[in-house]
């Protein structure tokens, strides 16, 4: 049996994940700036360049940045297998992802084909390196558990979503004749429904019981849930790929997907209500807000099918609830656990000198009131986003909310880094 995963010495240096976390909030600020520069209300038209640009700032520059950084850190713990050549992988995901996200967003914003043409190979490189490294790590892991299967399917979805994204960017830049609408739907459904959803499911199986001492997810859920969701997603794409597929396949599969997603949200909320650790913290509330948003995303999507007159409106709401409410809440909630823990963990390795100097505990690394402020600000931004397609003033509130969230989160991450640096220096002085 492989035991390398149990070695703490192989944990990557702290600056590897912190690099991803420190840069991500800047993309929230950029997203806000892009929305601010839009002509009119960018939420009225889902093809508005400013909305496309801001969305990719958030999905690539903010969310993927944090998810890729965090996965490189937690995959070894969750599935018991190291990432190969972890430093190289970190650099070759971080640099091209940063440059690619900047170029793609500005390419959309300025409708500039040169920027778009530079962006997609860089993004392709970042995802290729990350996917290859994660798949190697998954292949090496001896453990066979639901988390591993979920993460594997999530990464498979990412590989197709990323490839389609590259094709779409290239097509837009060079005016290729492509079935843009179908490709975009496939890209979005695999990126959100596959990569984000299955990753959250896989990670939740482990961290929900761990952080709040809840019962484990029920067996019926962990045994087949992710493969079923993945199959439903693939079947949902059939009518897009083959004209001959019966028209109802899409409707049935989409409904099934949202029922399953809603089911995951309900099970998670119920587990959290039965938690043995009754203490509430900001991170738990980010998680709960995420699950409630997922339920709303499901309801909005079903409403869009049942009410054809307002179909586009509810579809936009569903995407907003999924992206800003579900995915972004969970990413931020996890970040507020991961950063303080990493700082504590790396400082504590200073041994006897660290204990003599005094390592700050997790709540002394990022002050809790800041996390709570961020939680309320995020909730407000989400509400504004749901009103934005109908109400121009709300679009401005979303812009302001994203800007402030970027500043607040950036401040929180930098506070964590400066606590680390200060304490590490004192530990070094004590050992001199």
């Amino acid at each position, binding site marked *: 049996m492989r035991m390398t995963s149990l070695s*703490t010495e192989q944990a990557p240096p702290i600056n590897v994940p912190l690099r991803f976390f420190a840069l991500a909030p800047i993309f929230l600020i950029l997203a806000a700036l892009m929305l601010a520069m839009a002509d009119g209300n960018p939420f009225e038209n889902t093809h508005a360049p400013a909305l496309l640009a801001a969305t990719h700032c958030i999905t690539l520059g903010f969310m993927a940045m944090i998810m890729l950084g965090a996965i490189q850190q937690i995959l070894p713990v969750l599935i018991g297998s190291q990432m190969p050549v972890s430093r190289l992988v970190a650099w070759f995901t971080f640099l091209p992802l940063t440059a690619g996200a900047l170029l793609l967003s500005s390419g959309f914003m300025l409708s500039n084909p040169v920027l778009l043409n530079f962006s997609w190979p860089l993004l392709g490189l970042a995802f290729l390196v990350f996917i290859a490294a994660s798949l190697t790590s998954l292949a090496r892991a001896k453990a066979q558990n639901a988390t591993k299967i979920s993460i594997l399917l999530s990464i498979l979805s990412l590989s197709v979503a990323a490839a389609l994204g590259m094709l779409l960017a290239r097509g837009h830049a060079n005016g290729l004749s492509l079935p843009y609408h179908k490709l975009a739907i496939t890209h979005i459904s695999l990126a959100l429904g596959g990569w984000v959803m299955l990753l959250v499911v896989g990670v939740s199986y482990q961290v929900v019981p761990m952080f709040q001492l809840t019962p484990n997810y029920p067996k019926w859920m962990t045994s087949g849930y992710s493969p079923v969701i993945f199959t439903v997603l693939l079947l949902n794409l059939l009518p897009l790929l083959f004209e001959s597929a019966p028209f109802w396949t899409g409707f049935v599969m989409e409904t099934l997907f949202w029922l399953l997603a809603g089911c995951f949200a309900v099970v998670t909320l119920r587990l959290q209500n039965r938690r043995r650790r009754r203490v509430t913290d900001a991170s738990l509330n980010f998680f709960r807000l995420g699950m409630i948003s997922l339920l709303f995303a499901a309801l909005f999507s079903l409403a869009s099918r049942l009410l054809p007159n307002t179909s586009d409106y509810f579809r936009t709401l569903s995407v907003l609830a999924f992206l800003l409410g579900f995915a972004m809440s969970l990413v931020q909630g996890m970040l507020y656990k991961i950063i303080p823990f990493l700082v504590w963990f790396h400082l504590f390795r200073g041994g006897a000198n660290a204990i003599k100097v005094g390592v700050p505990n997790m709540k002394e690394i990022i002050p809790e009131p800041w996390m709570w402020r961020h939680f309320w600000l995020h909730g407000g931004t989400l509400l504004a986003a749901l009103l934005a397609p109908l109400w121009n003033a709300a679009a401005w509130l979303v812009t302001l909310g994203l800007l402030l969230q970027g500043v607040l989160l950036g401040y929180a991450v930098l506070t964590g880094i400066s606590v680390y640096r200060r304490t590490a220096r004192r530990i070094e002085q004590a050992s001199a």
Partner: protein
Amino acid sequence: MKTIAEFMTADHKACDDEFAVAEQAALANNWSEAEAAFSTFHNDMARHFGMEEDVLFPALVSAGGPAGPVHVMLMEHAQIKELLKQMAATVAQKDAQKYGGLSETLLIVMQQHNHKEENILYGIADHILAAEREALLGRMQAI
């Protein structure tokens, strides 16, 4: 009969419960209850470490089990013991805020540690020590 993994995992869960009770009382500034609950938790953690450090790990290593990972587990025990020592001091000082920060830290260190033991190490122990399992469980329970 229970496997080593089942027995030790149940003991982890019991310690988790005691952790939660102590934390809730301390954060509510209910110090008489917190003191009692923390002391139960602290004692049971010490007993659990005793079962591993005095019985299970030596048996595992002498039966040809993996020494490196056992060493890592012992290092993590040392981290947890240090956190428990600091928590005991905050109980004595009745400092709820400090207790909350330390217990948050302890929870993650402890859960990560348990996860590795439950998913990897105990399975190896059940495999390598199958023949002497009953005797080992008896010796562990006697601690």
